[in-house]
């Protein structure tokens, strides 16, 4: 499993301070699939899937939380951001998870996304899923599909609080997916899982993690997923996993192409035929592409503001995607409530001031709300969480893609 990004914000029930922005489908949640320029009249949602904007920063609570059930995994994906494989030495027990979910509910949490490693390799995965429901939280589960069989599908379909299942699918061509994920047959299993879960009435999404080897798979994947009633979330592999060869990381030009692809898909296909969105941390404020991500509007990284990441040994980060340098505490040392309410933690987002911005972000008009985009992308590419070269707005400005009044040949 590689998807360690913060949970997304879509849901089909309005809640708390979150505001329903549009009753449209969401890619693995979420996201506002937006109003692509000529998307035509309002279409019915794919399945449930109202879209909710993130709560205001003032309403600080762990609204949606990523929980790593285990670091154990039955695949060895090259781009895995958590370098999963073996379990951590002392992973949380069933009881510890129960306490954790109860505390999340107490803090105003609403959604728990279980991931790994591969969550289904934990023998007690089903019991943990039920605990999420018992705490009154919504459940999202992300799997690579390897362990999904008829019995697993049946059990998942019987979980009333299961909101969505995401299945990793990196290519339309089996050999590319299998090569990236380190195991032959993994593509077939992922497809089987996707279609079986869908057929069992579960809201299901494909999650594609892009790096150089599968960049050309975007179009074949679009053809594969078209009219399948499967939402599609596209994310970009980040630097940081030990198996990831940094030369496979998308450069800025390739990154922008991903934005162009999503934008083009949204223009070409109605949302109910291909509900596609970039993950919420991909590119912001483009003046050319229109909305490409899951959120109607980018409010900046939510780590420690309305999302939280819980590692399988109890260590806590603002978001599981973040580098281990941003581990804040451990729920085995003190309660999650105390950790969340500690004014000295999660300072990257909680104590932000515009003076901290660096590089292009410092003079960007969106800087104050954007806070330099995804803290993980910024940190792993520049060493600074407040200088983010992987931004559509910045690429457009720096590479002269938009006409600029004070540049030769610019408008005005």
């Amino acid at each position, binding site marked *: 499993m590689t998807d360690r990004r913060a949970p997304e914000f879509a849901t089909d029930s309005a809640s708390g301070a979150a505001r329903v922005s549009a009753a449209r489908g969401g890619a693995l949640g979420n996201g506002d699939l937006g109003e692509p320029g000529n998307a035509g009249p309002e279409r019915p949602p794919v399945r449930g899937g109202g879209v909710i904007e993130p709560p205001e920063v003032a309403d600080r609570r762990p609204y949606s939380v990523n929980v790593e059930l285990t670091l154990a995994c039955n695949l060895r994906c090259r781009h895995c951001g958590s370098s999963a494989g073996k379990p951590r030495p002392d992973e949380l027990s069933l009881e510890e998870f129960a306490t954790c979910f109860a505390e999340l509910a107490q803090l105003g949490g609403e959604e728990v996304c279980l991931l790994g490693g591969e969550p289904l390799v934990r023998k007690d995965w089903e019991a943990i899923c039920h605990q999420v429901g018992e705490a009154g939280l919504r459940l999202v589960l992300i799997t690579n599909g390897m362990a999904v069989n008829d019995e697993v599908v049946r059990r998942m379909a019987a979980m009333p609080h299961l909101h969505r299942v995401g299945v990793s699918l990196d290519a339309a061509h089996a050999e590319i997916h299998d090569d990236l994920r380190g195991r032959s047959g993994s593509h077939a299993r992922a497809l089987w899982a996707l279609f079986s879960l869908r057929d069992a009435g579960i809201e299901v999404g494909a999650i594609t993690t892009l790096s150089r080897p599968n960049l050309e798979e975007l179009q074949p994947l679009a053809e594969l997923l078209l009219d399948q009633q499967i939402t599609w979330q596209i994310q970009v592999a980040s630097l940081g996993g030990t198996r990831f060869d940094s030369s496979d990381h998308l450069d800025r030009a390739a990154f922008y192409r991903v934005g162009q692809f999503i934008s083009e898909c949204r223009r070409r296909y109605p949302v109910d035929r291909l509900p596609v969105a970039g993950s919420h941390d991909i590119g912001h404020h483009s003046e050319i592409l229109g909305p490409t991500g899951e959120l109607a509007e980018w409010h900046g990284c939510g780590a420690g503001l309305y999302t939280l990441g819980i590692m399988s040994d109890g260590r806590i980060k603002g978001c599981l995607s973040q580098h281990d340098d941003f581990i804040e505490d451990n729920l085995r040392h003190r309660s999650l409530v105390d950790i969340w309410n500690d004014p000295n933690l999660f300072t990257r987002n909680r104590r932000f001031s515009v003076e901290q911005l660096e590089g292009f972000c410092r003079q960007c008009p969106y800087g104050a709300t954007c806070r330099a985009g995804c803290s993980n992308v910024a*940190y792993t590419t520049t060493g600074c969480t407040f200088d983010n070269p992987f931004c559509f707005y910045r690429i457009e400005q720096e590479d002269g893609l938009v006409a600029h009044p004070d540049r030769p040949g610019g408008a005005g």
Partner: protein
Amino acid sequence: MDVRPLDPADPALAAIEEMLGEHYRSNLASYGALSREGTVLFACFEDSQPIAFGIFRNYRDPELHVGSHIDLDQLADILQMEEVGLYQVALLHARHPDRLVETTEALLAAFEGWLVEHYQRHGIFITLFEKGNRLARPLYKRLGFKKVGRPSSLMRFDLHRSDRFFRKIPPLPEALVVRFFEEVGEAEKESFAECYRTVFLRSARPDPSSVFSALTRVVSAPDFDPYLSCLLWSHQQERVVGFMLAQRPEPLQPHILVVGLLPEFRGQRLPLRCFPFIARRALAQGLSRGTFVTTQSMVVRLAMRAFGARQIERIQPYLKVG
């Protein structure tokens, strides 16, 4: 062949000091052997003469953290388990290289026997950074050591070209200043110990005074370089928020031992922004090169780009748990 642990009064120590001086230009004190609780020295004897020795250090000892070539967080998982004795093989050496495999095997077996007597469970880890450890490489797999975590990169920077690079490095934020060790007072040292404890030893939770005294020993060790080691001091918060400690194992080649920052100060490239201060001092002393170790590919990339550092070696830790 007889193998036994040595105590501080053992007459064999002189011969071991001699081997260390000859092959590593070092001494027992710089390994903390026999002077520190938690460092254990074993030797192999033949005809009552030491023919090989091994230095093993308790990984819970803060002094070891400072000189460790591996990612300090990597073994944090194991460190959280109180009952586990976790030791690093600091150095293995045999007087005659052709006896190295045989003596290493005997030393490790004797040391493991000692661990079993002292701890419920134990872990031994080793890196191949030291030449002696490297020479016995084929043995480790057979003895049950397995690769753990990320390998570290040994990086070298060349200060001759630094001015060109340093112009591009952003200055430190106004609230922060660099204080070099030669000029810091007791209060700053105490604040440094607290900072160190928060950065590296949070899960192990040692008491503050033991960290302070361990770090006091580190900064008074003969090869510690107070001239190039610095603290990052926050005026606003009146405390140390980060540190970079350097050592001078070779007279002309400083080695940055460890860099640490309080969590809330990470992600602002502060070590990089401190680097020109250190580099300028080094240049003023006629030093043109230095080294540091990192486990983070991000730091490797950044150091290459920001000041032309080069990766010269990869260091892989191996672990055996019993």
